[in-house]
C-alpha cells in the first residue's frame, strides 16, 4: 500500500473520531438533528479519477473461465504474478474464492484485495457504465443487440449448498418498520439481538440510544472485527425506531467506514457489516440524496464487477444485494427524486449492470432472485406500498433515463428467461416481470406520445451525460420495437411452453401489461403476444386459465381490438395464417396439439369480436376459414354398424314402450366420429368456433357461404350442415361463450329467414331422401313400381339421381355417410326449433312431416335422432309431449301423407309418417287421421301388386295402435265375459258335486227329462232352471243389441282393413302372407266386441285361412293357427262346424304323424320349424277346443292326437303343452277326460261301496308302468284336486 493512501485513510479515521466526539457533545447538550454533513473524504469523482490513473487490475485473459477451481487457480496465479509485478495483491473473484479456500495465513492478502476493490470501485463504475451505455445506443446493429453472450457459464459448476432459499420477491421493506430490527439476514437465524428477546431494554430517546450505541460504534471504528459488529448489532436491537432515525448517520458511519477501511478486506466482517447496515437502513429512512448516492456507490463496490473479476463469496454477494435493496427501500421521496436525475445516470447504470450481471451469471438462486428484486426496486418498479406511483412527469423522466438501459436490460433479462430450467421458476418469473415492467415503462405509448420530435440541446456542462440520454423519438421507438419484438417473440415462445405454471401466468401478465401500455409502440410484437395469450386460455392450470380469461375479457371490454385498427389487422393476419395451416396441422398434430391449435383459432375469433365481419368480408379469409372447417370436421364414415343397426319396432311387433319417448332425452346427441380427431373436447371447441362466428358474423353472409359449400359437393355436405347448425345456434346466442356482447343482436325475423332457407335446403328431396340401407324388400319394390321416365317428371325429379339404380353400386361408406348427413340435418332442425322457440310453430307446416318421416326410418340411428328432434321441437314450441305435438299438428301431417300417397315413389315415406304418428299418439288421433287412412286403403286398392308390403306395414302399425288404444276395452269386455263363463262353469261344477242328495236329484232329473221327452210335461222343475238362466243370459244379449248400432270408427276401420286382408291372404309372396296374417289377427282383436260384424267377416276369411292352415309354408301355418285361436275366442261355436270339418282332421293327422319324429329327436329339434308348429298347435288346441265348445267326437280326436305327446319320450315342452290340452279338455268334459285317461292308466282300484253294485272295471287298471304313466297320473291328480276344490268352494246345499 502506498503512502498517500495510508495517510489519507488515517486522516479519514481521525475526522470520523472527531465527528463522533462532536456529536456526542451535542447530544449531551440535548441538541437534535444531524450536524453539518461531514465532508466526504473520498468523493466518487476523486475515486474515479484515481481509478483511471490506476492500471487495470482485472485479468484480461479473454478466455471463458472453464472450471471454478482452475479458474480460481489461474486467477490466483495471474494475480500473484501481477502482485509480484506491481507489488500488489491479486484481485477478482477467483482470487478471493481461492483465498476463501486457502489457509488463514493469506488473510492479509484478502484485506489488501478488499481495499483494492474499494479503490477500484469508482473506476469500475464509470467504465462499466460507459461500456454499458454505448451498448444502449439505438443505432447499434441488430445483431449486436441480440447476439448471445459468448461467455458461457461453466456448465459443471458444483451446486451450491447451505444457501437457504430466500423470501423470493417478498420485499423486506414491506415488513412493519420501526418496531424492532432484525439484524440477521433472512436466511440466517437471528442472533442474540432477536427482537423478541425479553431481557433487552429498549432505548427510545436519542440520548439513551446514543449512550447505548456510542461505545459499540467507537469500538467498531477502532477495530473492524466480527465481534464488534455483532456488539453494535446487539445494541441496535435495543434502540427504538425514532431514536435510530436520529442516529442514522452516526451509526452508519462506523459501518461505512468498516467497508472502506484500508487494509485487507475480510469477507466475514464485510458480510456482517453489510447485514448490520441493511438492518439499520430497514429501520430508518434515507432522506439525504447525497447519503443515498454515496451508499449506493459504496454498496455497488461490494458487488463483483461484471466482467471477469473473481466473485466474492456468495454470502457476501447476497448481503450486498440485500443491503442495496434495503437502501433503495429506505430511500425517501426527495432522495429518490434526486437519484433519478440525468447526472446520476452513470451511477445508476453501474448499479444496473452489476445487478444484471449477478442475476445472469450467478448460479445461486437466492442471489439471482435478490439481484432481480433489487433491480426491480432500482428501476422503480417495486410493488410494495412504500413506493408510491410515479407522477406523470417523473415517469416520463425515468422513462427517458431507463431508455438508455433498455437494450442491455432487455437482452440480459431475455437471456435469463431463456436460461436453464434449473434456475427455478421464480427467477424466470421475476425476470419476466422485470422485463415487461421496464419495457412497459420505457415504451409506454403515453410517454412516447409526449416525447418531442427533436432532441433538446443539452446545456454545455451536462453535455457528456446528456449524450448518454436517449431521445425516444419515433425513429428510436420504431427500431427499438423491432428489436424488442424479436426478444419478445423468443421470450413468449419459451415461456408459453414452460413447465411451471407460474411462468405461464407471468407471461399472461406480460401480455396484459404490454397490451395496456404499449399498444402502439409494440404493435409488431402482438402477433406473438396475442397468440400466446389466446393459446393459454386452455392452459392445464386453472389459475392461468382464469387469469387469461380475465385478461381477454378485459381486452374485449376495453374494446382494445375494436379501437385499434392495427391490432385487428394483426389478428386477422394471424387468423388467416392459422386457417391456412389448419388442415396441415390437423393432419400432423396429436390431439393435444390440435386442441391448442383450435383454441388458438377460437381465441382469435373471440378477440376479434365484432371485428370478425371485417375478416369475413374478405373473400380469401372466409374461403380459407370455411375450407379449414370443412376439412377438420370431416366425419369418419367407415363404421358399418351404423348402417346395420335397425329399428325393429314396427316390423317385429308393436312395442308400446317405444311409443312413449323412452330412451330419448334431451341433449342426447349421437356421438360423431371424426377423421382427424377423437377427443370430444376438440369437437366442442369447433362448435364454439362456429358459434362465435355466428354470434358476431353477418349471418346472411355466413349462411349463404356455407349453403354454397353444402350444395357444392357431397364431400362438404355433412360438415357444412354441422357448421350451419352451429352458426344458427351462435347467431341466436345459444351456448356461446364470448368475451364481449355484440353490438346489435340479431332480429328474430332475420334469424327466421335464415333458418327457413336452410330448412328448405335440408328437406329438399335431393338432400332428404338418401339411400341409407339396401332393404331388398323396399328397394325392389321401388324399382319395380317407379318407372324411371315417370319419376323424372315428378316434382321430386332430383331424387332420380339418389334412388339406387341397379347398376350403381352403393357402398356401406356412402350409406353411412348418408345416415350421418340425415342425422346432422335432423339435429339441425332440432337446433333451429330451440333457437326460434314458439316461433317455430309456423315452420312446423314444412318441418314436422320430414322429421316424422325420419322418425319412422328403419335405420336405428336416424330414427333415434329424429325422435330426439321431435322432443326438441316439443320443448321449443311448448308442447307437453310428442303426442300432443303430433295431435295438434296432425292436419299438417295428414296433408303431407295424403299428398305423398299420390306419388308412388314416396309412398314408403308417407306410410312411415303415418306409422310414426300412430306410434307416438293415442286414441284422440284417430278422428284426425281417419281421413287419410281411407286414402291409404284406396291407394292400396289401386296397387295391390307392388305396394302391398309397404301398405301392410302401415296397416299393421294402424291395427297395432288400435289394439293398444281400444284393446283395453275389448279385453275388459272379454274378461267380464270370461268371468261370467267361469262363474257359470263353477256353478255347473257345484251341480256335479257328488253327494247322496245330488245323486238323488240327478236321478230324479233324469226321470223328469225322460218324461218330458216322452211328452209328459209338468211345471215342477222350473224354479231351478230360472236360477241358472240369468247368469247365462248376458252374453247373447250383448251381441244382439250391437247389430243395430253403427260401428265405432275404429271397428269400422278394422273391418275395412280386414276386408283388404282377405284379398291379400293368398298373395304369392310369403312375406306378404305372413304380414297379412299378423294384421288379420289384430283386426280380429279389435273387432272382438262387435260380433255381428266379426262373424260375417270371419265367414269370408275362413276359406282363405283354411288354405293357409292346410297347405302353406309352416311359417304361415304357425301364424294362421294363431289367428285361428284368436278368432275362436270370439266366434266360438260359429266356427265349430267348419273347424271340425276343415281343419281338425288335418291338424290331428299332422300331430300324429309328427309325434314319431319328435319322440326320436334330439335337443336340436327344438329349433326346427316343425317343433315350433307342434308346440303352437298343442298349446293352442286346448283352448281352441274349449272356445269352440267342440263335440264329443272331435274331443276324442283331439285327445287321441294329444295322447302320444304325453309320452315321456317327447320333448318336455311338448309334454307340457299336451298336458295343457288335457287340462282344457277337463274343463270342457271332465268325465269323459277322466274316463279317457283312466283307460290308459288307472292308479286306483275302485271298489264298489256296496256289494249289490257291480265292480268297476277300467282298461287302464293294473297296467305296467309305461311312458305315459307319469303324465297321466299328474293329470288325474289335478283332476281330483279340481273336483274336491270345487266341492269345497260350493256352498253346502
Amino acid at each position, binding site marked *: 500500500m502506498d503512502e498517500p493512501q495510508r495517510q489519507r485513510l488515517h486522516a479519514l479515521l481521525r475526522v470520523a473520531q472527531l465527528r463522533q466526539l462532536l456529536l456526542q457533545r451535542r447530544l449531551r447538550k440535548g441538541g437534535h438533528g444531524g450536524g453539518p454533513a461531514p465532508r466526504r473524504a473520498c468523493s466518487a469523482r476523486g475515486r474515479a479519477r484515481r481509478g483511471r490513473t490506476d492500471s487495470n487490475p482485472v485479468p484480461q485473459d479473454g478466455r471463458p473461465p472453464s472450471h471454478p477451481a482452475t479458474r480460481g487457480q489461474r486467477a490466483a496465479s495471474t494475480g500473484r504474478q501481477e502482485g509480484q509485478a506491481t507489488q500488489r495483491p491479486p484481485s477478482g473473484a477467483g482470487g478471493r474464492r481461492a483465498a476463501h479456500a486457502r489457509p488463514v495465513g493469506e488473510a492479509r492478502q484478502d484485506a489488501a484485495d478488499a481495499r483494492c476493490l474499494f479503490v477500484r470501485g469508482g473506476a469500475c463504475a464509470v467504465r462499466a457504465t460507459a461500456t454499458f451505455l454505448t451498448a444502449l445506443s439505438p443505432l447499434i446493429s441488430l445483431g449486436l443487440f441480440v447476439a448471445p453472450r459468448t461467455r458461457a457459464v461453466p456448465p459443471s459448476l458444483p451446486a451450491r449448498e447451505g444457501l437457504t432459499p430466500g423470501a423470493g420477491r417478498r420485499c423486506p421493506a414491506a415488513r412493519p418498520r420501526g418496531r424492532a430490527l432484525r439484524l440477521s439476514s433472512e436466511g440466517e437465524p437471528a442472533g442474540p439481538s432477536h427482537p423478541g428477546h425479553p431481557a433487552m431494554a429498549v432505548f427510545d430517546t436519542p440520548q439513551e440510544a446514543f449512550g447505548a450505541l456510542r461505545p459499540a460504534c467507537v469500538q467498531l471504528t477502532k477495530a473492524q472485527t466480527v465481534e464488534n459488529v455483532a456488539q453494535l448489532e446487539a445494541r441496535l436491537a435495543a434502540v427504538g425506531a425514532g431514536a435510530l432515525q436520529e442516529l442514522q448517520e452516526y451509526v452508519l458511519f462506523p459501518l461505512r467506514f468498516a467497508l472502506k477501511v484500508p487494509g485487507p478486506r475480510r469477507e466475514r466482517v464485510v458480510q456482517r457489516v453489510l447485514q448490520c447496515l441493511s438492518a439499520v437502513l430497514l429501520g430508518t429512512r434515507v432522506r439525504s440524496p447525497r447519503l443515498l448516492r454515496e451508499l449506493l456507490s459504496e454498496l455497488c463496490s461490494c458487488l463483483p464487477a461484471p466482467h471477469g473479476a473473481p466473485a466474492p463469496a456468495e454470502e457476501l454477494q447476497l448481503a450486498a444485494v440485500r443491503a442495496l435493496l434495503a437502501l433503495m427501500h429506505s430511500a425517501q421521496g426527495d432522495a429518490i427524486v434526486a437519484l433519478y436525475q440525468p447526472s446520476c445516470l452513470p451511477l445508476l447504470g453501474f448499479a444496473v449492470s452489476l445487478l444484471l450481471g449477478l442475476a445472469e451469471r450467478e448460479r445461486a438462486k437466492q442471489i439471482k432472485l435478490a439481484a432481480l428484486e433489487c433491480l426491480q426496486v432500482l428501476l422503480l418498479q417495486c410493488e410494495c406500498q412504500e413506493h408510491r406511483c410515479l407522477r406523470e412527469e417523473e415517469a416520463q423522466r425515468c422513462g427517458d433515463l431507463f431508455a438508455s438501459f433498455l437494450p442491455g436490460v432487455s437482452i440480459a433479462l431475455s437471456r435469463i428467461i431463456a436460461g436453464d430450467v434449473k434456475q427455478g421458476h421464480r427467477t424466470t418469473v421475476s425476470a419476466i416481470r422485470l422485463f415487461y415492467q421496464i419495457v412497459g415503462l420505457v415504451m409506454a405509448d403515453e410517454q412516447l406520445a409526449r416525447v418531442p420530435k427533436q432532441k433538446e440541446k443539452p446545456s454545455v456542462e451536462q453535455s457528456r451525460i446528456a449524450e448518454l440520454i436517449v431521445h425516444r423519438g419515433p425513429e428510436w421507438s420504431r427500431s427499438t420495437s423491432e428489436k424488442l419484438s424479436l426478444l419478445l417473440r423468443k421470450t413468449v415462445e419459451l415461456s408459453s411452453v414452460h413447465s411451471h405454471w407460474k411462468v405461464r401466468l407471468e407471461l399472461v401478465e406480460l401480455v396484459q401489461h404490454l397490451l395496456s401500455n404499449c399498444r402502439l409502440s409494440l404493435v409488431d410484437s402482438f402477433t406473438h403476444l396475442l397468440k400466446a395469450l389466446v393459446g393459454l386460455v386452455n392452459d392445464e392450470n386453472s389459475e392461468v386459465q382464469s387469469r387469461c380469461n380475465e385478461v381477454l375479457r378485459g381486452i374485449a371490454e376495453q374494446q382494445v381490438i375494436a379501437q385499434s385498427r392495427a391490432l385487428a389487422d394483426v389478428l386477422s393476419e394471424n387468423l388467416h395464417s392459422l386457417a391456412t395451416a389448419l388442415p396441415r396441422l390437423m393432419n400432423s398434430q396429436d390431439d393435444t396439439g390440435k386442441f391448442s391449435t383450435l383454441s388458438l383459432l377460437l381465441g382469435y375469433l373471440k378477440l376479434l369480436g365484432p371485428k370478425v365481419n371485417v375478416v369475413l368480408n374478405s373473400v380469401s379469409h372466409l374461403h380459407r376459414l370455411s375450407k379449414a372447417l370443412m376439412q377438420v370436421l370431416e366425419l369418419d364414415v367407415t363404421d358399418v354398424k351404423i348402417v346395420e343397426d335397425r329399428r325393429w319396432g314396427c316390423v317385429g311387433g308393436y312395442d308400446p314402450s317405444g311409443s312413449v319417448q323412452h330412451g330419448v332425452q334431451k341433449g342426447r346427441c349421437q356421438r360423431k366420429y371424426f377423421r382427424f380427431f377423437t377427443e370430444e373436447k376438440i369437437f366442442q371447441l369447433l362448435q364454439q368456433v362456429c358459434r362465435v362466428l355466428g354470434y358476431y358474423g353477418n349471418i346472411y353472409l355466413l349462411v349463404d357461404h356455407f349453403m354454397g359449400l353444402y350444395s357444392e359437393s357431397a364431400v362438404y355436405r355433412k360438415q357444412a350442415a354441422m357448421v350451419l347448425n352451429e352458426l344458427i345456434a351462435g347467431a341466436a346466442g345459444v351456448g356461446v361463450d364470448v368475451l364481449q356482447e355484440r353490438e346489435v343482436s340479431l332480429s328474430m325475423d332475420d334469424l327466421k329467414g335464415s333458418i327457413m332457407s336452410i330448412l328448405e335446403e335440408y328437406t329438399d328431396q335431393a338432400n332428404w331422401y338418401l339411400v341409407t340401407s339396401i332393404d331388398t324388400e323396399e328397394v325392389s319394390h321401388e324399382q319395380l313400381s317407379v318407372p324411371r321416365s*315417370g319419376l323424372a*317428371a*315428378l*316434382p321430386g325429379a332430383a331424387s332420380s339421381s339418389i334412388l339406387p339404380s341397379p347398376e350403381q353400386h352403393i357402398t356401406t361408406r356412402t350409406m353411412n355417410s348418408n345416415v350421418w348427413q340425415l342425422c346432422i340435418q335432423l339435429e339441425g332442425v332440432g337446433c333451429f326449433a330451440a333457437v326460434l322457440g314458439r316461433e317455430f*310453430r*309456423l315452420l312446423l*307446416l314444412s318441418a314436422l312431416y320430414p322429421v316424422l318421416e325420419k322418425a319412422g326410418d328403419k335405420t336405428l340411428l336416424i330414427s333415434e335422432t329424429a325422435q330426439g328432434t321431435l322432443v326438441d321441437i316439443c320443448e321449443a314450441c311448448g308442447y307437453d309431449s310428442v303426442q300432443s305435438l303430433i295431435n295438434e299438428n296432425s*292436419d*299438417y301431417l*295428414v*296433408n303431407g301423407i*295424403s*299428398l305423398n300417397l*299420390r*306419388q308412388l315413389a314416396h309412398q314408403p315415406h308417407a306410410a312411415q309418417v303415418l306409422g310414426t304418428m300412430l306410434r307416438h299418439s293415442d286414441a284422440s288421433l284417430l278422428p284426425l287421421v281417419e*281421413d287419410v287412412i281411407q286414402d291409404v286403403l*284406396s291407394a292400396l286398392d289401386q296397387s295391390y301388386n307392388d305396394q302391398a308390403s309397404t301398405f301392410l306395414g302401415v296397416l299393421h302399425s294402424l291395427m297395432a295402435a288400435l289394439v293398444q288404444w281400444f284393446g283395453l276395452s275389448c279385453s275388459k269386455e272379454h274378461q267380464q265375459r270370461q268371468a261370467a263363463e267361469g262363474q257359470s262353469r263353477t256353478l255347473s261344477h257345484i251341480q256335479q258335486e257328488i253327494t247322496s242328495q245330488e245323486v238323488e236329484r240327478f236321478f230324479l232329473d233324469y226321470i223328469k227329462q225322460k218324461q218330458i221327452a216322452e211328452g209328459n210335461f209338468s211345471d215342477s222343475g222350473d224354479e231351478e232352471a230360472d236360477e241358472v238362466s240369468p247368469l247365462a243370459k248376458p252374453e247373447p244379449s250383448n251381441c244382439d243389441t250391437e247389430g243395430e248400432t253403427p260401428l265405432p270408427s275404429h271397428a269400422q276401420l278394422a273391418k275395412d282393413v280386414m276386408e283388404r286382408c282377405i284379398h291379400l291372404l293368398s298373395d304369392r309372396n310369403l312375406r306378404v302372407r305372413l304380414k297379412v296374417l299378423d294384421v288379420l289377427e289384430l283386426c280380429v282383436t279389435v273387432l272382438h266386441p262387435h260380433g255381428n260384424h266379426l262373424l260375417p267377416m270371419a265367414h269370408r276369411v275362413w276359406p282363405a285361412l283354411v288354405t293357409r292352415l292346410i297347405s302353406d309354408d309352416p311359417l304361415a301355418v304357425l301364424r294362421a293357427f294363431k289367428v285361428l285361436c284368436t278368432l275362436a275366442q270370439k266366434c266360438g261355436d260359429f266356427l265349430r262346424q267348419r273347424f271340425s270339418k276343415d281343419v281338425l282332421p288335418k291338424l290331428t293327422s299332422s300331430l300324429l304323424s309328427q309325434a314319431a319324429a319328435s319322440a326320436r329327436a334330439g335337443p336340436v329339434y327344438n329349433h326346427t320349424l316343425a317343433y315350433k308348429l307342434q308346440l303352437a298347435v298343442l298349446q293352442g288346441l286346448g283352448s281352441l277346443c274349449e272356445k269352440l265348445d267342440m263335440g264329443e267326437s272331435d274331443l276324442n280326436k283331439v285327445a287321441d292326437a294329444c295322447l302320444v305327446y304325453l309320452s315321456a319320450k317327447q320333448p318336455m315342452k311338448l309334454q307340457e303343452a299336451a298336458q295343457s290340452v288335457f287340462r282344457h279338455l277337463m274343463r270342457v268334459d271332465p268325465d269323459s277326460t277322466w274316463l279317457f285317461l283312466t283307460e290308459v292308466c288307472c292308479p286306483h282300484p275302485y271298489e264298489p261301496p256296496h256289494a249289490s253294485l257291480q265292480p268297476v272295471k277300467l282298461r287302464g287298471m293294473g297296467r305296467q308302468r309305461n311312458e305315459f304313466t307319469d303324465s297321466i297320473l299328474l293329470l288325474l291328480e289335478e283332476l281330483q284336486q279340481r273336483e274336491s276344490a270345487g266341492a269345497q268352494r260350493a256352498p253346502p246345499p
Partner: protein
Amino acid sequence: MAQPPPDPHFVLRGTGAAVHALHFSCGGGEPDIPVLFSGSENGFIHVWNLKTHRVDAALDGHGRKSVCGLKTMDGKERLLSQGRDQRICLWDLAEGRTSVTDSVFTENVGFCRCSLLKVAEGRWLMATAAKALEEVQVLELPSKTSVCTLKPEVGAKLGMPMCLKLWQGSCGSQPSLLAGYEDGSVLLWNLSTGKVLSQLICHQEPVMSLDFDSEKAKGISGSSEKVLSIWSLNEQQNLQVQKTHRLVNAGISDITIRPDKKILATAGWDHRIRIFGWKKLKPLAVLDYHTATVHSVSFSDHKSPSDRLLAAGAKDHRISIWLIYTQT
C-alpha cells in the same frame, strides 16, 4: 311429353261437411294474413289462415243450412254470406269480432248464388234471386234499397235463375246483369231500364255457372250437360255463341275466370278441376284430387302473382289449394 298434373299445394281439412262456397281475401299488405273463407253444407263458414293453413274462426250464422255464396266487401273484415236459410248475412270480422251486423231475407229457395258489384266507394249492388220463381232482385248495399226487380216477359218459361253475374263496362258505364236460367238460356239485363237486352240459348240443360270477362266482352257458361259454351257480346249488346267445348264427363258446378283473364277453371261433377286457356279455351290441365263432386273453384287475389292460389272445395269435405301460377 306433357307434364303430369301437379299435386295440390295443400289440402285443407276439417270443414266437417261438403264445401259449397269459397272466397279468398288476400289483397292486404304484409302484416295482413291472407285468408280463405269457405262455406260448407253444415252452415259453417270457416276462416282459413293461409299462413298456418288452419282455421282461425268458424262462423255459424245460417242455422246449420248450407252456405252457398261468400263475398267480401273491401277487405276481409266485411263478409257477405248467402245461405240456404234464405238469408244473406253481412258479417263484421274486424278485430276478431264474429257478429252478423245486417241480413237480408231473400225468401228464395233456389241454389242461385248472389252477385256483388262495387259501383262506387262504399256503394255496392247485389243481385239475388227473388221470392218469385223467375225474378231477380237487385239491391243497393249497404242501404238495402231495391234498385230494380227483373222479371222476364210473361210466358218466357225461363225457369229459375241459376247463376248471376253483375258487371260494369270499363268507362263507368251502367252496370249490367248476366243471368243464367233453368232452361239453359243466358240473359243480359239492363239494370236502369229493367229490360232484357239480349237472350241466348246456349245449353239444353240448366246453366249451372257462368263468368264474364268485361274487357273482352266475352263470357263462358257451363251446365249439367257435357258442354262449355263461350259467347260474346257485340256492340249492339247482342249475345252470340262463339264456341262450344265438349267435355268428357257431364256437369259443371262452377266456372271462374282468373282475375288476369288468362285462364279459367271449372269445377266438375266428375271430381275434377279443369284449367283452360281463356283466349282459345285450350285445355291446359285436369287437376285430379278430389273424390267427390267439386262445388266451387276460386282464384286468390294476392298482390304478387307468385303468391296467387287456386282453391277448390268439394263434396268430400276437403278444400284443395293449388299453385297454378307457377305452372303456366
